[in-house]
């Protein structure tokens, strides 16, 4: 455990790189959108005052895991941190990020609701298709997709670490081929409608927490397996 804590402390040496970027992004997004809607005033109806700026929160963090895999990992191993300790520390870091993202965004959502859309009737977090009445369920809906995106980028970072650009290219080619095959089979068997119907009937919590969690498990397991056999 001591080794894991050491690895985690090294990963946390640059909180601006590991933790803070999505929060800067959402802060800036709120400020810009609030200013815009304040300037626009009441010219736009409430139904048209919904923004997609929440995506900034998720997308701005995609560089963190590749940075960990390609830069911090070789440095940590030079300092004799084991691969296992590095992997455990990263799992702890991602879990903490997810909890913070979920609870933080849910809190901002409460503020948005309480201030009638940041005083300008804007919908940035309180989006109709992710709304949950319970605070912790709302935190799950915000947090788990963050974890899923992180685990996907972590896997891509690990593939790049082990196999370089060619490996990454082959991975995308293989993924594209598999996706195209699955799509073709679904179209040919007239199953596409059934699949869409199935996901459409699922509760929101399943779409935003359960299925992303499956992605977390799949990508996270593949990432850990690659990192543990990674040469430095």
């Amino acid at each position: 455990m001591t080794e894991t804590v050491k690895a985690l402390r090294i990963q946390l040496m640059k909180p601006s790189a590991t933790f803070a970027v999505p929060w800067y992004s959402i802060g800036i997004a709120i400020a810009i959108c609030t200013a815009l809607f304040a300037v626009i005033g009441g010219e736009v109806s409430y139904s048209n005052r919904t923004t997609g700026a929440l995506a900034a929160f998720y997308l701005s963090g995609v560089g963190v895991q590749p940075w960990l895999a390609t830069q911090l990992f070789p440095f940590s191993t030079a300092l004799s941190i084991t691969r296992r300790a590095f992997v455990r520390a990263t799992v702890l870091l991602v879990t903490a990020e997810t909890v913070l993202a979920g609870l933080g965004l849910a809190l901002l959502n409460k503020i948005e609701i309480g201030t009638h859309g940041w005083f300008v009737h804007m919908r940035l977090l309180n989006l109709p298709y992710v709304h949950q009445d319970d605070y912790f369920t709302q935190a799950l809906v915000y947090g788990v997709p963050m974890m899923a995106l992180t685990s996907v980028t972590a896997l891509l970072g690990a593939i790049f670490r082990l196999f370089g650009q060619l490996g990454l290219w082959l991975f995308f080619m293989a993924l594209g081929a598999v996706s195209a095959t699955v799509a073709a089979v679904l179209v040919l068997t007239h199953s596409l409608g059934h699949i869409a119907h199935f996901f459409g009937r699922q509760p929101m919590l399943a779409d935003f927490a359960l299925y992303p969690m499956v992605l977390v498990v799949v990508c996270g397991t593949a990432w850990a397996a690659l990192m543990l056999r990674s040469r430095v």
Partner: protein
Amino acid sequence: MSAVVVEDLTMRYRGHTALDGVGLTLEKDTIHGLLGRNGAGKTTLMRILTGQEFESSGRVEVFGQPPRENSAVLSRVCFIREAQRYPQNFKVREAFAAAAIACPGWDQAYADRLVKDFELPLKRQIKKLSRGQLSAVGIIIGLAARAPLTLFDEPYLGLDAVARHLFYDRLLEDFSEHPRTIVLSTHLIDEVADLVEHVVLIDHGKVLMDAEADELRGRAVSVSGPAEAVAAYVDGLPVLHRSELGGRVRVAVTRRPDGSGQTDPRAAGVSVESLSLQELIVLTTKQGDPK
């Protein structure tokens, strides 16, 4: 107990044999020179010793245990590589802070002193450092970590002669106060000849030489003079190299360990000079080349 024991170590990747049945022992509290040409297998050996690479076969023990994913061993090891990668957005002081977290023997006061010696800008980002300054970061981490096994793989890329000698001075100074096992891989053999106590020469993945430096220093000589006189003088001795210019011949030979059978050079009409460690290494390596 030795610091490192390697037996029949082989490392193959993609059809290439980087290490081929290597066996060696590195004693504790000694400065070992790991010498050899580019691509000889030195870095691969050090990567395996520090758990960064996985051997194909053979036995590797560091402080009596396999190093692979073994935190009990690795916490006593520090490996500074030639092209050591640092997080580009780290500042120099953050790299040292990370080393202080990871290395149980880290000496901050000593690190501060080395920072002054090498005139490193602590607040500058790693990506803005020159090649020599990057090497200085590695050297400071390697020395201030005071790891019981410290490995330097060509640590002075881009450092000028003054800075390299500063490194040698500080290494020797600190080693005398805090003895530990140091493995120094280098091409600058003449510069480290007086520093290393034990020499391992690797070429084409095999150990060509494994001996105490003192023993090697007197092992080989260059005999020059008229061809017949030289031939008579070196008769029966293993010849490392022979060159001829006009009627004069220069032959590098290995002395008999006991020094027996050697006549007075002046009486034999030849002149004899000791070979430097670098000359001995070069000639031994060349001898191993396929003809």
